[in-house]
């Protein structure tokens, strides 16, 4: 009898455990399920990065923007030109003063009216909380001239102000809503936040009082899946309808199946090789020129990127007006260039100078695995030409570039994320910039960059940006390898979720599902 009672107790405890386990599916997830069931039309998307919160003026601003809930004063078009969004027009009063005319009838998700004072408060918070945004905008003061007019005075001439107001760090939010712990931030987008499950998902629903064209879907669930393989399999299994950042290695698998569509777009990213212009090997232009001519760009595009990219010419993607550089095909003799700098080939076929065999270190980093594969292709090509290159993979490339000795480095950057060339050119090529890690120095380029900073005329600034690139290109501080494509994949029934060069607008009002 005693044993039987023990047995019943054991079964009871086990049943309790199972019930607890089932209960662990948490109320919030149950709420998510219920709301999903109630929704008439919904879709699930898989994004790569998981935000730590929904504060738009923190490092999570890009994720907030991608959710389709938030907007900025300016939007970047598919051609990357600044176009009206929450600001319907703008004018430059003098060199440092701008007036922005805001859209009327815009309300935040909590029902409050978005007026010039609210936008001023939001921008003020953005520049106070995020040094990066402060750096982009360079705002000295702001004044709400009327309900729909906002005056912005910059500390210096900032020709890129309008473009930079498209940066997600400038998202317009009702500042008061950020103080409340029991509600989500109130933005102005076509979708409003319904539920945020940290590290897991963000559920957004259509904002019925949206000032523009209303969202086609009632609800969108954004799942944060950091692992690329899991993201792919979540799409294949039907757990999600669309996924971002699909590895080029997986494109073939998806294309074989009619259920899926692979969507690609040229990105604003540039993969490049940096030369340390103070390294004994690469001090002379001739050697940099020789190495540059040996980089098999088209082979890298075809083999490493599986055709999902464009061979590099300059720092900016060719989708940008100032990225359309004319490629100068120059017949370069590697032997002649090397000999010009005093190198001779030894008996083993390796280049040698002052008794030292050519041996350089090429840095790479694991966060972008394709760069290391490219480094190996370059290493192999250079070895065939008598140049030994050792690849060194480092955890933090920026720290090593700044603090250690190096010869060559693989690097990757969104060179014009707001559609303006100024920021990248200033940071990487100005003589006094400490981010100018390869020690490029040119007074002509410095002067041209300063001129660019003050040029508001689009045509003139484009011409100037191209001229700066040509001037820089003469010294070859970088070898631009490839502009990789952005790759998304969707199930056939998902419409409107498309890859764009700009990486801000993933979910939007036109995303729909059959």
């Amino acid at each position, binding site marked *: 009898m005693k044993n039987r009672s023990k047995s019943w107790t054991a079964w009871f405890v086990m049943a309790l455990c199972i019930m607890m386990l089932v209960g662990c599916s948490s109320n919030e997830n149950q709420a998510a399920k219920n709301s999903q069931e109630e929704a008439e039309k919904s879709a699930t998307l898989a994004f790569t990065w998981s935000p730590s*919160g929904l504060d738009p003026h923190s490092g999570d601003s890009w994720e907030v923007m991608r959710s389709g809930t938030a907007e900025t004063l300016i939007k970047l078009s598919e051609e990357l030109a600044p176009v009206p969004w929450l600001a319907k027009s703008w004018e430059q009063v003098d060199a440092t003063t701008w007036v922005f005319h805001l859209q009327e009838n815009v309300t935040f998700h909590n029902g409050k009216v978005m007026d010039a004072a609210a936008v001023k408060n939001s921008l003020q918070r953005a520049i106070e909380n995020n040094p990066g945004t402060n750096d982009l905008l360079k705002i000295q003061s702001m004044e709400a001239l009327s309900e729909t007019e906002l005056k912005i005075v910059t500390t210096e001439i900032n020709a890129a102000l309008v473009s930079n107001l498209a940066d997600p760090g400038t998202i317009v939010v009702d500042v008061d809503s950020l103080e409340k712990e029991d509600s989500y931030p109130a933005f102005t987008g076509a979708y409003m936040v319904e539920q945020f499950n940290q590290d897991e998902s963000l559920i957004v629903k259509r904002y019925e009082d949206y000032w523009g064209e209303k969202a086609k879907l009632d609800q969108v669930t954004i799942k944060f899946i*950091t692992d690329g393989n899991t993201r792919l399999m979540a799409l294949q299994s039907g*757990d999600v309808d669309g996924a971002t950042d699909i590895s080029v290695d997986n494109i073939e698998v998806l294309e074989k199946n009619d259920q899926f569509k692979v969507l690609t777009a040229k990105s604003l990213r540039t993969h490049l090789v940096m030369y340390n212009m103070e390294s004994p090997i690469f001090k002379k232009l001739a050697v940099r020129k020789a190495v540059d001519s040996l980089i098999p760009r088209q082979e890298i595009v075809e083999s490493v990127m599986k055709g999902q990219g464009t061979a590099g010419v300059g720092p900016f993607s060719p989708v940008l007006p100032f990225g359309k550089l004319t490629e100068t095909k120059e017949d370069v003799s590697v032997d002649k260039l090397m000999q010009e700098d005093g190198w001779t080939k030894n008996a083993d076929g390796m280049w040698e100078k002052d008794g030292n065999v050519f041996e350089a270190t090429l840095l790479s980093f694991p*966060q972008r695995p394709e760069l290391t594969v490219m480094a190996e292709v370059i290493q192999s090509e250079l070895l065939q030409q008598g140049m030994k290159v050792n690849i060194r993979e480092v955890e*933090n490339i*920026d720290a090593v570039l700044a603090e250690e000795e190096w010869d060559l480095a693989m690097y990757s950057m*969104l*060179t014009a994320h707001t559609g303006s060339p100024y920021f990248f050119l200033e940071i990487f090529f100005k003589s006094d910039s400490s981010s100018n890690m390869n020690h490029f120095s040119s007074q002509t380029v410095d002067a041209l960059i300063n001129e660019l900073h003050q040029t508001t005329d689009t045509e003139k600034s484009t011409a100037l940006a191209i001229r700066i690139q040509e001037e820089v290109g003469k010294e070859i501080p970088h070898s631009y390898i490839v502009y990789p494509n952005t790759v998304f994949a969707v199930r056939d029934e998902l419409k409107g979720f498309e890859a764009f060069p700009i990486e801000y607008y993933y979910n939007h009002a036109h995303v729909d599902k059959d």
Partner: protein
Amino acid sequence: MGKFVFEHLFQLVLVIFCVATLTFLLIRFSPGDPATIMLKANGVPASDEAISALRGELGLTNSIGSQYLEWLQQIFTGQWGESFVSGKPVISELFMRLPATLELAFAGLGVMFAVTLVLGISTAVYEQGAVDKIGRVLALLGSAIPTFWLGFLCIYIFSVHLGWLPSMGRSNWKNLILPATTLGLGLGTVYARVLRAHMLDMLQQPFVKASRARGISTNRILVFQVLKHALLPIVTMAGTSFAFMLGGSIMVETIFSWPGLGQYVIESIKMRDYPVIQGYVVFAAILFVGIHLLIDLIYLILDPRLRAR
């Protein structure tokens, strides 16, 4: 018993101090500046002014000595600082993610025990039979197959191919099955061999022969005598495994997008979120020492000889 607990608690404080100091130093001397990483997180350029301003805001411009003292003070006052990335208190960030990790660790432990018991008992009972041979192969595979591979294999078979289970996330109980299996299966097959060996050893003991002579059924002997004694080393190993699952389920959490501590700490390491990394290491140290203290206490309860000492 009181002296035992006091001694172990003193050891816990000492361990926390050493771990806190070592973690602080290792992180500070490892390459990578949190301000630079945060500002360049989306692959965009960042100016020196912005980086310097953020470094100042994060308190990274203070001397290493004052940062260390502040950290120690925070640890022993239970504050643990604020995350560089989210700005929220580290302790609440860790506790927020702990339930998901605990849920996965308990489920993984459950799978491990189930596999250990089923495979361990059956291979001991049918020694040298087909089941035993299968058990041996499974143990070999369990110890040889990497967790990430098993995880992806499970997703491919049960989610993509069969469509039975969700591939990722933590929406309901079904989401738990694949990650728990990935976490517990390998260890279970290995521990089954340990259980089998101990059970075979116990089956040779005189008390088993005596029980058989008294006419007690084989099943009763197996469950209430042999298994009871053979489980003791498994309890020790399970304790260590549980601590491993709590601290080491990083890979499984990442593969299955499981919103627990493991995935969080990986992201924090990528971002060089010093307060979170330091907090996590101390948190893991407390868990490890705490679990071992608990195991020692269970030993005291299970084994009267230890109490006599």
